[in-house]
């Protein structure tokens, strides 16, 4: 009796509950254990069902965060991955948004891809100075791009509609108008899921290692056979592509594009996401976007709850609180939210016998 039961439970635990990888191949693969696959399945199902679970306003915020996370991932690949810096991320989002605003309705997915493509081409161009300069100097070069783009958004009326911007008819997918955040969510998933998967795999394979090698030590990278020019240009183009796609999706969410959506402060906001989220992982980009985009919402509702008479004073304090939170992170948890998450996970992994 006992041996049979034991054999059954062993077989079960080996087949389904196995949480340990046994070969190098499994260690390399994505979600290689049955438990890992289960977790991934549940997560994907949750994403697909989210519009049924949340109301319209939370869904609007969720869509905003998902788009933000996608864009943050792009910047993250460039900054955390390849060690380059860009203060022009918002400009790339703007390029994507304006491009997408010209192809909407049933063609919207195409327009968003086109936005990503144009942004990637511009990213390639912006990557050129990175071949010569680094650090603060590169930051200034990208800053110049941000201002140039801003100027173009405001003045190239034929394409951008100038200060008034452009409005978009809702996107359509399979004949269904995506006029609410609940419906637009699926268009966002359609772009975000493959791009997230790609980003995650990229960091774990050849190109990702080349990125990190350039970040850590470019002299050594060259001698180890890494082509600096190709890696840097690819990193800039890829990051701009993510931003462009995110910009296009954002235009669909707002149903409008104006220059005010993509100023320098948004570029800096995205850099903050990368820093708060923590370097090195895709999870960091997501957590950073959550934090940076959600905290103002939370503080907003907090201000709202106190009553309208304080609104004006507290609105200013909201920015201060936000800034303070970021500072606290930089000082107390340099690895960002990812570091925090890692420590929580390790605590429970060894619980209740940590030694």
């Amino acid at each position, binding site marked *: 009796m006992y041996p049979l039961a034991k054999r059954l439970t062993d077989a079960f635990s080996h087949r389904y509950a196995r949480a340990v990888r046994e070969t*190098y*191949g499994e*260690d*390399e*693969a994505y979600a290689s254990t049955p438990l890992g696959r289960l977790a991934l399945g549940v997560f994907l199902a949750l994403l697909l069902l989210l519009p049924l679970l949340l109301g319209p306003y939370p869904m609007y915020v969720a869509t905003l965060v998902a788009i933000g996370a996608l864009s943050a991932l792009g910047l993250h690949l460039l900054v955390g991955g390849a060690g380059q810096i860009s203060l022009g991320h918002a400009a790339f989002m703007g390029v994507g948004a304006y491009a997408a605003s010209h192809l909407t309705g049933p063609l919207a997915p195409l327009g968003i891809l086109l936005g990503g493509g144009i942004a990637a081409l511009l990213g390639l161009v912006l990557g050129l100075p990175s071949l010569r300069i680094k650090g603060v100097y590169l930051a200034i070069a990208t800053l110049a791009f941000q201002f140039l783009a801003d100027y173009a958004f405001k003045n190239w009326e034929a394409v951008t509609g100038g200060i008034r911007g452009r409005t978009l008819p809702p996107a359509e997918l399979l004949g269904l108008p995506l006029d609410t955040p609940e419906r637009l969510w699926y268009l966002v998933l359609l772009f975000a899921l493959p791009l997230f998967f790609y980003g995650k*795999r990229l960091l*774990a*394979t*050849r190109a990702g*290692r*080349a990125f*990190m*090698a350039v*970040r*850590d*030590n470019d*002299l*050594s*990278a*060259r*001698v*180890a*056979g*890494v*082509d*600096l020019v190709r890696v840097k240009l690819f990193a800039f183009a890829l990051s701009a592509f993510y931003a462009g796609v995110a910009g296009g999706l954002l235009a669909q969410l707002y149903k409008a594009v104006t220059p005010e959506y993509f100023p320098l402060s948004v570029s800096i906001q995205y850099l903050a996401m990368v820093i708060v989220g923590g*370097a*090195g992982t895709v999870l960091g980009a997501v957590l950073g976007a959550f934090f940076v985009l959600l905290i103002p919402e939370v503080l907003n509702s907090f201000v709202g709850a106190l009553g309208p008479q304080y609104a004006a004073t507290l609105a200013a304090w909201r920015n201060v609180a936000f800034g303070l939170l970021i500072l606290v992170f930089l000082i107390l948890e340099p690895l960002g939210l990812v570091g925090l998450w890692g420590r929580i996970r390790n605590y429970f992994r060894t619980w209740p016998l940590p030694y």
Partner: protein
Amino acid sequence: MGAILEAKDLHLAFKGVKALTGVSFQVQPGEFFAVIGPNGAGKTTLLNVLSGVYEPEKGEVFFLGENLRGKSPQERARMGLGRTFQGLEIFRGMSVLENVKLGAELALPTYPLALPRAQREGQLRAWAEEVLDYLHLSPFRHAPAGMLPYGLQKRVEVARALAGRPKLLLLDEPMAGLALEEKQDLARFLLDAREEWGITLLWVEHDLRAVLELSDRVLVLSYGEVLYYGPPEGVRKDPKVVEAYLGQA
């Protein structure tokens, strides 16, 4: 087959400081070739010229019979010319395994598209693990390379270079700062790598005893000029070397 590496009359000066003047030598396949010399003799400059970080003003470098002029460091690396650096030039933010895998890319360069990525990655991993095991680094595979103690970091750099299966490996002071025991281990690893994988070694080193014990031939540089070029036994007997390097006895 002739020499694996041949330097012909190399000249390089930095704003009038002559770093290399008329340096010529040959390295034979399978050799353990040492370059020594006092500080500022031009040893590291020589390695930089060989690996393509600097271009010589005059003279040529031939590797496997091919002239290297105009070839970038990464092209030379792909031809099988490996290199480690003086001091620590590893990828500090990457794990030990990622460091070695990056190096190992050079060992499987020819079919980037033929294999599915996962399978390729698996092959790379298997080879990287072999190198890690060989250099006794396996327990640290997932540790960020920059967090390891100095001696291990040096070993990570050697592992990264060896993983690329270079035909010729240039080592810039691999033993500097290591304890005696670590030096002995490293010497063992290098000799084994030569034996097993047929890697020719060219090293710059300050530890004279190690150099004279291990190397097949020695090149002595001083102020960019060749003082001595031959078997290690002759180094201590050469009057010019004794004067410039070892000091008056």
